[in-house]
């Protein structure tokens, strides 16, 4: 029972992070029908940017949460700018090209970003200074710390804010109109290019937040961390139904839970043959099962022919 509750808590934390990253994939897909495979790298850049700021401020005697907040405040605009530039440089010139072309540039951008960050930050694992309280509180026989509570709460608030933005504001309405029919949206006076830039910028801001969360929670950051995280968040977006915001949130949380519970119990279930180091298997098992059984995802309206 304790293990179950504990794995659910861990799963919710992980799932909140996946959900934030998955939103970046799904928003861009919703508007452009394009999988932005460089999005994982945006998350990584956010994590490393925050890490450097946090390290620089660690000796100043400021309270830990304030330092991390500064790290976040640095990472978010950097990633927003990066998302904006990626769209401009790698995708906009290929707007009318065959579908494969932007996919290839996405991979190119990924590699470039990874290598650039490796040059700047080195190829070793970097540890995130332990500035946040990790003293456990007990909850129904399991433990949860302040950082984990903060991750879940901030992710939930951010996603709530995003839903309000998309559903209740003028620009959100323009985003939905553009996602449905860009040429008709432009007849309404919507500057479609600006909406596309805005979508990349918002998605990248969510990615930066996720990057800070993941590196603070696991106390580690690395130039290649965006690859696996990106693939898993992409899986979460597909699980929920790519292009669907609620689906990305649901898919992220579910994938986090599946991965946590799976890696928590795999040892018992296989009599110790497989251990929790097989945790990455679950995400890809989910991806394969979804693509085979329900390609449109849990909340997807129609089967996508473009993915």
């Amino acid at each position: 029972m304790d293990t179950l509750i504990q794995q659910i808590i861990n799963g919710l934390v992980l799932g909140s992070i996946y959900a934030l990253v998955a939103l970046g994939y799904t928003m861009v897909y919703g508007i452009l029908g394009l999988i932005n495979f460089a999005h994982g790298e945006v998350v990584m850049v956010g994590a490393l940017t925050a890490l450097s700021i946090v390290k620089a401020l660690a000796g100043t005697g400021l309270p830990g949460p304030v330092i991390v907040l500064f790290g976040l405040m640095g990472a978010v605009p950097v990633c927003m700018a990066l998302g904006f530039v990626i769209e401009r440089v790698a995708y906009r010139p290929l707007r009318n090209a065959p579908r494969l072309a932007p996919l290839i540039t996405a991979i190119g951008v990924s590699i470039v970003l990874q290598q650039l960050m490796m040059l700047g930050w080195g190829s070793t694992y970097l540890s995130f200074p332990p500035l946040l309280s990790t003293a456990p509180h007990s909850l129904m026989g399991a433990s949860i710390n302040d950082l984990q509570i903060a991750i879940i709460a901030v992710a939930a608030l951010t996603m709530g804010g995003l839903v309000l933005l998309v559903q209740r504001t003028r620009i959100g309405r323009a985003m939905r109109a553009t996602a449905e029919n860009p040429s008709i949206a432009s007849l309404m006076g919507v500057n479609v290019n600006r909406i596309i830039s805005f979508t990349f910028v918002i998605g990248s801001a969510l990615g930066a937040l996720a990057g800070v969360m993941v590196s603070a929670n696991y106390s580690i950051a690395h130039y290649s961390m965006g690859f696996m995280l990106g693939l898993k968040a992409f899986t979460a977006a597909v699980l929920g139904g790519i292009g669907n915001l609620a689906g990305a949130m649901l898919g992220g949380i579910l994938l986090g839970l599946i991965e946590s519970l799976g890696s928590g119990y795999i040892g018992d279930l296989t009599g110790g043959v497989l251990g929790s180091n097989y945790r990455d298997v679950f995400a890809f098992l989910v991806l394969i099962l979804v693509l085979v059984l329900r390609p449109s995802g849990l909340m997807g309206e129609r089967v996508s022919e473009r993915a």
Partner: protein
Amino acid sequence: MLKVRELRVAYGGIAAVKGVDLDIADRETVCLIGCNGAGKTSTLKALARMLPAHGEIRYRGDDIVQWPAHRLIGEGLALVPEGRGVFARLSVLENLAMGAYCRDDRGEIESDLQRVLGLLPRLEERASQLAGTLSGGEQQMLAIGRALMARPKLLLLDEPSMGLAPIMVQKVFEVIQTIAAEGVAILLVEQNAKLALSVSSRGYVMDSGLIVLADSSAMLLDNPKVREAYLGGE
């Protein structure tokens, strides 16, 4: 209001519009008729800047031929596209709000919304429904209402009768006449030539990318060639 000279549109090397001249005066309703494939929709799309075009499109003094589509509606030029083009996953009210996207005069927008809902009462009944759940006629009404929310000075209408039941066609055209009576200039593209000529003061007949006849609607209705080719030879 609108002065078009030598308008040309080509799709991948094939000319669809081969040098069209058109004029629309303030408050005037003009129709553009012709067979399927004559280039009517291409002309309208070029005017609305949805297609790259050459020539001169002078709208209220400005040559807009190079303008991006999204600049036009704020200047009072609105298109109701062929096939209606409502946002199926937005509600009726959200669709109408998209029509006023470029405006920031909140109070005026609200009063225009009431006016549009008064003109198109079916939309009021369905205000919070998703536009995709409306019937074809209701969607056409919504597309027109959405364009009206921009307070257009010139309204381009592309085949508003297409695919509608006769009773609905009649209602749509009543609405068009009401809009015209309020002083909005209208360019109406229609395959239903008789109907189009009956609500307009002048008409252009288009064939194979060119204007082949231009006259008052009354004269066109009497013209034997037009009767033969476009009015079913009545």
